């Protein structure tokens, strides 16, 4: 987030070719953010949702996609119109004390998300170790996590991460494996379609927590800071914004199509399998590698390997972006020097925060016996619970005419976003009550 390359704009009616060129020059923030959304937390949460609840959560992706598009578009619009990041706007428009406490929560959430990415690296290690002779899996896991942390830190601070980002972006094509696998496993399409459009709801504690986790992993608070900063960084302006909007919408739909097929693949394999076998032979998802079963119809015995490669790619891709984004928005909010183009002595807070997030995130998962799946799942739950806070701040900002001029939200966008705030906040309160009184959630 250190280079600014403003697309040229003339304000005249563009030809179709010029429109395409403009789109390609602006494309990036939406699609990159969307792919970062299919991170370790996303893959594992969607997998777990399918494995544990079958197709019954598919309907959730329809409203989630709508809200994701709206929310990402709002951030991109605020970036293009104000030329400022979200944290910067929060600090300028609300009290420093409010900014401090809100950002503290988001930094803690991002610490969990960073640990989630390294948990993905740790989870893929035993699968790779299985293909290597004479390797101690535990030592290999530690070596991979430390290696990933060093790799991420080095590529980002040496300024070559933009190139690396594009390489990992290409590898995101591996997610298509879930789409193919979901088709190959011959799910009951009638059931799939029905579950996609007819909401099913259970008041059980597990179901409520899973809904919050799916919402939280799809519309993560950190993504809103990231996409707005990326739009500002790319120099996208008011007159070019329509192309950016297309980028955001394309990215949001892509991310949820992949999420949809991950759920279908896991439901059609693990959930259906567990329905038809005695408890002793059921597939228990105790480790991220267990959900690799969903890819077996596509690649047979290499399912675990493909899954591990996908998980590792997702982990390093997002681990390169997320802590950087966090350090960037905290420094942006409080006016500290920021950006990887500065030397350490010129931006000590930025580098210290970034290094701390990477070191603590990686350090937590190499503790022997660390509950990797728990770290991943509960980080997504935290994302979901924190979401209403960032949405309220965004709504308050985007409806201020002195900031947005004629680009304030219309009534439909406001109603949908406020509805999302209320729904997630109510789910959070219900989940908290169920957590305090477990008997209320044992439906």
């Amino acid at each position, binding site marked *: 987030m250190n280079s600014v390359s403003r697309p040229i704009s003339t304000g005249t009616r563009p030809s179709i070719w010029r429109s395409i060129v403009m789109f390609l020059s602006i494309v990036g923030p939406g699609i990159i953010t969307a792919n970062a959304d299919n991170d370790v937390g996303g893959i594992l949460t969607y997998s777990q949702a399918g494995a544990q609840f079958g197709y019954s959560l598919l309907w959730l992706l329809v409203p989630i996609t709508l809200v994701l598009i709206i929310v990402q578009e709002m951030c991109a619009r605020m970036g293009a119109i104000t030329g400022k990041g979200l944290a910067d706007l929060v600090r300028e428009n609300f009290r420093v004390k409010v900014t401090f406490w809100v950002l503290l929560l988001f930094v803690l959430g991002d610490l969990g998300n960073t640990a989630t990415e390294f948990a993905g690296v740790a989870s893929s290690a035993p699968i790779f170790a299985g293909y290597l002779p004479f390797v101690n899996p535990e030592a290999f896991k530690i070596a991979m996590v430390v290696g990933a942390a060093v790799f991420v830190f080095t590529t980002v601070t040496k300024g070559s991460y933009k190139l690396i980002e594009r390489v990992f972006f290409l590898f995101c094509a591996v997610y298509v494996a879930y789409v193919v696998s979901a088709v190959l496993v011959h799910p009951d399409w009638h059931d799939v379609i029905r579950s996609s459009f007819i909401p099913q709801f259970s008041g059980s504690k597990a179901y409520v927590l899973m809904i919050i986790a799916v919402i939280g992993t799809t519309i993560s608070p950190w993504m809103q800071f990231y996409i707005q900063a990326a739009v500002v960084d790319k120099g996208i302006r008011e007159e070019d914004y329509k192309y950016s909007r297309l980028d955001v919408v394309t990215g949001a739909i892509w991310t949820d199509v992949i999420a949809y097929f991950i759920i279908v693949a896991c439901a059609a394999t693990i959930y259906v399998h567990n329905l038809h076998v005695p408890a002793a032979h059921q597939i228990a998802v105790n480790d991220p590698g267990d959900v690799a079963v969903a890819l077996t119809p596509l690649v047979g015995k290499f399912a675990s390997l493909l899954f591990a490669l996908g998980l590792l790619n997702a982990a390093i891709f997002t681990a390169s972006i997320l802590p950087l984004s966090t350090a960037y928005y905290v420094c942006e909010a409080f006016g500290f020097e920021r950006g990887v183009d500065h030397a350490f002595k010129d931006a000590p807070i930025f580098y210290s925060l970034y290094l701390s997030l990477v070191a603590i995130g990686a350090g937590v998962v190499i503790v022997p016996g660390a509950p990797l799946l728990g770290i991943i799942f509960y980080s997504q739950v935290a994302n979901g*619970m924190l979401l209403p806070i960032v949405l309220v701040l965004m709504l308050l900002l985007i409806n201020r005419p002195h900031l947005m001029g004629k680009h304030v939200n219309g009534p439909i966008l406001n109603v949908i976003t406020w509805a999302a705030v209320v729904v997630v906040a109510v789910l*959070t309160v219900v989940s908290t009550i169920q957590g*305090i009184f477990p008997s209320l959630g044992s439906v």
Partner: protein
Amino acid sequence: MKNSTNGKKNPALIVLAAYMTIVAIGILAALVNAWRSGKILP
């Protein structure tokens, strides 16, 4: 949530603080339940 200079608490800030407290309790409760039940996932 404008800056308040007359010492009165802004209701929006009180709601925000209450919600942040609920989030903290909610996450803590979920973690404690997972730990007590011995099951990582709910």
